[in-house]
């Protein structure tokens, strides 16, 4: 279809004589929307998502930051205290750093590092299960099972497993003659005990990501590599893993996010204890602002902001690498 301007030019040629036949197709002046359709449509499709993202994500972030400069019990009036919450939390000025924050921060780091073990473990199980044997689907679903059950159930199962007297762990240790240990009651071990529980479903998650990734590994490349004499580790490292890069990226993202939001397992297994040694920042925030004795919304918000800044590093990295991939893809 010709644009109106072009059309009038064509019509303009016999302009000298008046038209004999009345023009039955007068130039249609199209609406503003029609003219901008191509540019507008994507925004229209994005609008609902952007609206909800703004209302439920962007605005609350702003509100959290705002609340973190106040002292507020969540019920009455909030009083402006400036950076006092941050001073106390991070030990700025003449104050000591809040020890609960210190513990929570280092526990978060432990979670971040150890939780990443889920990626190699998931890869390993995926490689192991990526074969055609009778009933392999059953084995796969058994390995996937922990990811399907709720974190609360995982927490309960593991806390029974760790029980100091009746627990299976101590029964096994007893068989090999090792003394009974109370993992969740020992401030030095409890966090590792919870991370181990968290790794169980997380490994299953990474496994399923790699299993789908392995389906798309190009068999011709594997064949070619085999002809070139590659096998074992070298095959895995130089031929298979590079092709699994998208799966690795997603596994990395979900594991990091999972580590930073670890909350339910801690709440179920130790309730932050013994003596607060298993707190992480998200649990600490909940405890300060929303729990039974928590009426310190401002302080809780300050913790949330710090956690957000930590997460921002990872988010920035993810966005950057996604952007880079998109650019390469073009």
């Amino acid at each position, binding site marked *: 279809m010709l644009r109106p301007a072009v059309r009038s030019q064509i019509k303009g040629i016999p302009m000298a004589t008046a038209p004999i036949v009345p023009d039955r197709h007068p130039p249609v002046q199209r609406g503003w929307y029609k003219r901008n359709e191509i540019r507008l449509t994507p925004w229209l499709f994005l609008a609902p998502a952007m609206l909800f993202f703004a209302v439920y994500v962007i605005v609350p972030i702003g509100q959290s930051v705002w609340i973190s400069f106040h002292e507020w*019990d*969540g*019920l*009455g009036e909030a009083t402006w205290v400036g950076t006092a919450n941050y001073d*106390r939390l991070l030990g700025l000025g003449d104050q*000591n750093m809040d*020890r609960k924050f210190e513990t929570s921060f280092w526990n978060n780091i432990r979670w971040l590092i150890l939780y990443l073990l889920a990626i190699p473990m998931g890869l390993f199980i995926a490689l192991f299960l990526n074969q055609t044997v009778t009933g392999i689907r059953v084995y796969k679903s058994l390995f996937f099972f922990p990811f399907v059950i709720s974190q609360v159930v995982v927490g309960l199962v593991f806390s029974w497993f760790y*029980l*100091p*007297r009746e627990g299976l762990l101590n029964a096994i240790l007893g068989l090999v003659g090792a003394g009974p240990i*109370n993992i*969740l*009651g020992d401030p030095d071990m409890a966090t590792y005990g919870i991370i181990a529980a968290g790794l169980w479903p997380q490994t299953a998650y990474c496994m399923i990501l790699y299993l789908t990734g392995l389906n798309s590994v190009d068999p011709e490349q594997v064949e070619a590599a085999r002809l070139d004499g590659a096998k074992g580790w070298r095959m895995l490292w130089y031929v298979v893993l590079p092709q699994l890069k998208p799966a690795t990226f997603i596994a990395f993202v979900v594991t990091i996010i999972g580590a930073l939001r670890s909350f339910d397992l801690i709440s179920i297994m*130790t*309730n932050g*204890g*013994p*003596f*607060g040694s298993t707190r992480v920042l998200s649990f600490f925030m909940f*405890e300060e602002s*929303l*729990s*039974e*004795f*928590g*009426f*310190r919304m401002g302080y809780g918000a300050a913790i949330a902001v710090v956690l957000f800044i930590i997460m921002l590093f990872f988010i920035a990295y993810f966005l950057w690498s996604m952007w880079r991939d998109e650019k390469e893809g073009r």
Partner: protein
Amino acid sequence: MRSIITTSFAAVVAAAIASGAIAQDDALSGELRITSDMSNPAPRAVIEGMVADFGAMHPDLDIELTIVDREAWKTQIRNALGANPPDVVNWYAANRMRPYVDAGLFADISDLWEEEQFAALESTKGALTLDDKQWGVPYTYYQWGVYYRADIFEELGLSEPTTWEEELANCQAIIDSGRKCYTIGTKFLWTAGGWFDYINSRTHGYDFHMQLARGEIPWTDDRVRETFANWRQLIDMGAFIDDHQTYSWQEALPFMLNGEATSYLMGNFAVAAMRDGGLTNDQLDFYQFPKINPDVAYAEDAPTDTFHMASGAQNPDAAREFLRYVTSADVQTRINAGDALGQLPINANASVDDDKFLQQGFEMLSNNATGGIMQFFDRDFEAEMASVGMEGLQEFMVFPDNLDDILMRLEETRQRIYQ
């Protein structure tokens, strides 16, 4: 359930005739909304029975009852009171009311307390008073004390201790027999608060304990250290079960049921669980926490559960009438009976069920708690102080050597909160 309601009907008719205060002339109408945390089976039957009763007394009144899980209510009450609040809610006495009183969410009902009927509730008036006004009414309370295995005491030839020396001697004998003196589960921290309440108030008295609760005494005070030193005597003997930081109070019960530990410092609500666990009345008995400092009068933990009217109540007349109803002698007798809540009524004119533990507890609180009645660590202390404090108490019970560090931490918190 049905039988509770029908018997209640009869009682209500009698009560309505007997007491003029309840049968008021102007009939209540409209809607009365009650949100309750009485979610366990027995308390749920009680609140449902009360609502049915009250509804029968006021036929024009439309009562809407919402029952929230007891633990969940501790965090949900804030939202519930915030927007479009119910008329009547459940909560706890003493400092636990503070945030809602300060925020103006609980209604001031001092005028109700002026009424004649409320004279019978005098004993708990203090616990419901903040800033010289009353903010709620009590419906039940229960004693704390040492529940012990009478059969094991008999086997070892022990008797109920009344002094700290006897207590320590008893405990030594129990440990020598290969058992632990006390079971306790401190995973949720508050159980350790009970021990602190008792040892501190027995060492220095009620007034000192309450001063500490109000933040008037530093945690690093030598008298506080004395309290911990007394506590430590038991810890060093190995009086408490191992790994208690991993258990809830219910998970710590089997130790007592199997006879691996002989006693439990607990509230009277534990009796039902112990009986369910198979202990008979002959095996189970109760004694008051022994004296430590002979010059100090007994003070007892007796937490009070309460009803409050929200300041945003839509039907304040009905709400007030309901508060009068739950505090009346007949209702308190009935709801605290052994087959209902199994606890103690507040109203002095109510009668106590003839259960042996309720009778002993009532006797103890009426005649042998001259020092004063404590509401419990987490209700007497300010909320943040309580949570930091109980964590410190748990740590002390596991690592008593960390005491200096713990006290420093608590002191830092105290100075910040009560500045």
